[in-house]
């Protein structure tokens, strides 16, 4: 089976990208002891996207995020955020960033509100009203004056998001943001990130090993494995009319259907007729089947999920 979505060159976007990249990784290397965690990462993150950073556990995602936020220094190379080097101009670079690195750890002996105040005090551009705004936005109104030690993991995640967006950052970095969220929370987060990119033009950089999540959330994903960038691909690209996809027809007399359409058009798999064709082709096949008196119970396109492609590329999620 061939991979359906188009490969796009590394580094950079699809050519559709407008504006300067929000993040530019310039040959970033991280060595810890004798081990190389990140090997020459070069990548541009275009503005206004939800950008996924996908890789199996231990592939260097969190290390990369730690370097983006200045928590770790790259061994070589540099990361430029909104035109400022995170190593050379840390304060200018980081002021454009809001982040959750790993779990959103907060001061448990303070209330959610007091925690947010801590971060608001560290900037001059967060008025009191903004704090109320992010509290409403993350749905924490009812518990915001309770101590964080009484919060569930999901509520801590929300508070983590609240502190990250407090100062309306141009770049929002979220490390495995769906950890600990229930399906409802994951959905809200997803909608929320979409909303942020749309209304405020925020660029969101999300890391995850949850491929299905990334597919739903991201415009573009960069895939890393064992510290190397192995692919960058765009998701949600509109399938045009000429794209051929595998399509399964669930019919009552499958052998007869194949004979009718011609043996070379498709194959029978799992009791269904599988055909590779485009949109127009699907409609025509359906018409011919119905006209021949064959009952069609269902038609389904068999797009391969990113997960299949990802597993194929990373050798079945093998940790190297």
């Amino acid at each position, binding site marked *: 089976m061939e991979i359906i979505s188009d490969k796009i060159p590394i580094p950079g976007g699809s050519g559709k990208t407008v504006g300067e990249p929000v993040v530019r990784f310039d040959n970033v290397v991280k060595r810890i002891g004798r081990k190389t965690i990140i090997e020459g990462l070069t990548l541009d993150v275009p503005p206004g996207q939800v950008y996924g950073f996908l890789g199996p556990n231990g592939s260097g995602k969190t290390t990369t995020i730690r370097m983006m936020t*200045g*928590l770790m220094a790259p061994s070589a190379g540099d990361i430029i955020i909104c035109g400022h080097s995170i190593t050379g101009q840390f304060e200018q670079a*980081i*002021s454009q960033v809001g982040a959750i690195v790993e779990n959103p750890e907060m001061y448990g*002996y303070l209330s959610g509100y007091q925690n947010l105040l801590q971060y608001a*005090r*560290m900037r*001059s551009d967060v008025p009191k009203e903004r704090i109320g705004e992010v509290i409403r936005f993350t749905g924490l109104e009812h518990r915001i004056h309770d101590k964080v030690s009484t919060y569930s993991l999901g509520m801590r995640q929300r508070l983590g998001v609240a502190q990250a967006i407090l100062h309306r950052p141009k770049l929002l970095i979220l490390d495995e943001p769906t950890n600990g969220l229930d399906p409802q929370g994951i959905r809200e987060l997803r909608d929320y990130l979409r909303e942020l990119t749309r209304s405020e033009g925020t660029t969101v950089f999300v890391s995850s090993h949850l491929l299905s999540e990334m597919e739903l959330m991201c415009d573009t994903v960069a895939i890393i494995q064992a510290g190397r960038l192995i692919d960058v691909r765009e998701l949600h690209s509109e399938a045009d009319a000429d794209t051929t996809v595998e399509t399964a027809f669930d019919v009552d007399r499958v052998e007869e259907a194949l004979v009718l359409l011609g043996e070379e058009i498709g194959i029978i798999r799992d009791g269904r007729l599988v055909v590779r064709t485009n949109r127009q082709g699907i409609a025509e096949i359906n018409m011919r089947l119905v006209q021949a008196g064959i009952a069609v119970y269902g038609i389904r396109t068999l797009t391969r999920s990113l997960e299949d492609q990802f597993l194929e590329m990373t050798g079945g999620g093998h940790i190297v």
Partner: protein
Amino acid sequence: MSNFFGLIHNENIKIYARMRTWVMLGVLALIALLMPVLIHFVSEGIGLWSAMNTLLLFSFLPTVFTIAVAADSAAGEFSRGTIKLLLIRPWSRSKILLSKYISVLLFMLAVYALFAGLGLLMSSLLFDTESAANDMIGQLTGSLGDYFWWSLLYRLVDCLIYFTMAFMFSVVFRSNSLAVALTIILLFIGDLVTLLISPERYEIGRYLLFANLDLSQYISSETGNYGVTTIGFSLAVLAVYYVIFLALTFWVFRKRDVAA
């Protein structure tokens, strides 16, 4: 960027919002209020300043409490993981660490003020300011009042050195308990070390930190406990240690990769 006082305010909140801090302050207040009563019952005819000098025997308490707060200041952020959210703000690491250090310094002044203030309040109710004939410390020349204030100042200097050491361990080892344990151990073995490497016999002994701590040794003798140092010398040695501790602390904190 916002104002540096905001950072110090943040650090103060982290100290005073905790139950632990109020337990320490409560214990301290209780000691400062009850010890003069006890002294009043067991000793007769002693004056206010004698009582206060006796109370100073308990000054290890505010020192130990300050050490505990200093040890938690950085290490607590590492063990809680909150260090990550703290360092991704538009402030240099040095300024964040400086705000922590200042908040501990303010805490030290607060606990000593509480300790001495309440002690003084209680003692002035119980003791006569004038009668200073039978002091409990003995063999002293000069005013007992002066002795008290100088002793208090020297305790503050000791405490400053100890908490700076705890603060350093806190940053270097990122472990609260290790920082407390190391500092307390050093606090107690200090005398032992100076006994083994006695400044009277070994030249190197006089450069030891512990030979120069407890500046109150110069109240009764100009050449100190060992007869080979002066207060100027001791202050110079302490200053050198202090600068080394702080330089190491800030250097490690600035350079270190945060992977907590």
